């Protein structure tokens, strides 16, 4: 399988994501510039963290209009796994691929620490190798990670099992302790924590490894059946 890591002006976790995927899967990974308008050659797409287009106006607001995000939407429509990490999550909500929005942390501090997350579902291409209810340790690094959606949306996410991860200790004021959510089709995941920063022992946690292995297992299974 082949992975795309999208690079916007202002992305800064693109190389981390690329290296983590290469290390874990051994698969080819391309860094794809934001003006690309066709991602059909890729089996999985990662929107990395950073400050796309300087996060002018709102985090992810300008990135949403780039050609590559339209291409991401097309591949998501085809059912390919799309993983948005941190700024990637913000871009996914701004573009409407995921519901809700991400706001300034309720205490206004930038939080950079390893966070404990509860895996709420393993029914997704991103979490199939985790146990539901399992506590994992993944770093967060954000100033605007307070997930917000109106009560109806939050209730629907809960009812349909689309909250993939919850914070054990809420670091930013997110509604319902939400750290990551899935779209209705479950092939798009957005999360504020950084799984690519938890893939080697010296990083303090290796709990991110299984997210990339999960995606790989999902795609390889699909390719085998194709």
């Amino acid at each position, binding site marked *: 399988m082949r992975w795309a890591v999208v690079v916007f002006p202002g992305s800064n976790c693109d190389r981390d994501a690329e290296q983590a995927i290469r290390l874990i899967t051994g698969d080819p990974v391309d860094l794809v510039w934001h003006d690309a308008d066709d991602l059909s050659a890729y089996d999985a797409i990662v929107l990395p963290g950073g400050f796309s287009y300087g996060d002018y106006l709102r985090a992810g*607001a300008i990135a949403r*209009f780039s050609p590559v995000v339209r291409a991401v939407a097309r591949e998501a429509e085809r059912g390919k796994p799309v993983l948005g990490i941190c700024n990637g999550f913000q871009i996914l909500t701004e573009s409407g691929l995921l519901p809700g929005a991400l706001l300034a942390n*309720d205490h206004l501090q930038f939080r950079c620490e390893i966070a404990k997350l509860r895996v709420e579902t393993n029914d997704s291409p991103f979490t199939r190798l985790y146990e539901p209810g399992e506590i994992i340790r993944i770093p967060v690094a954000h100033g605007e990670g307070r997930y917000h*959606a109106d009560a109806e949306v939050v209730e629907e996410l809960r009812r349909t099992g689309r909250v993939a991860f919850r914070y054990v200790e809420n670091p930013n004021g997110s509604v319902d302790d939400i750290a990551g959510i899935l779209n209705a089709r479950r092939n798009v995941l957005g999360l504020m924590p950084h799984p690519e920063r938890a893939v080697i022992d010296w990083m303090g946690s290796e709990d991110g490894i299984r997210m990339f292995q999960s995606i790989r297992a999902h795609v390889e299974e699909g390719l085998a059946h194709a």
Partner: protein
Amino acid sequence: MRQFDVEVKVWLKPSVFDPQGHAVHGALVSLGFEGAGEVRIGKFIQMQLEAEDEEAASRQVEEMCQKVLANPVMETYAFAIRERGQ
């Protein structure tokens, strides 16, 4: 075509907690402005716009707010349009 000056205000919906406003409120009270009530902080956008008439300008600004300038999930907006030189 006519020239318009547009002013757009964007701020968080009343239902959304505004930590900046909350912090500034605390600062105002600690400075002795004890009458200061809830503070909400938003954005102010000035724009020049060319359009056929005021109605067309208003329609365009409404669309800009919906699509880019504000995120209706968490924000609300208001705008004023004035023809230049009037």
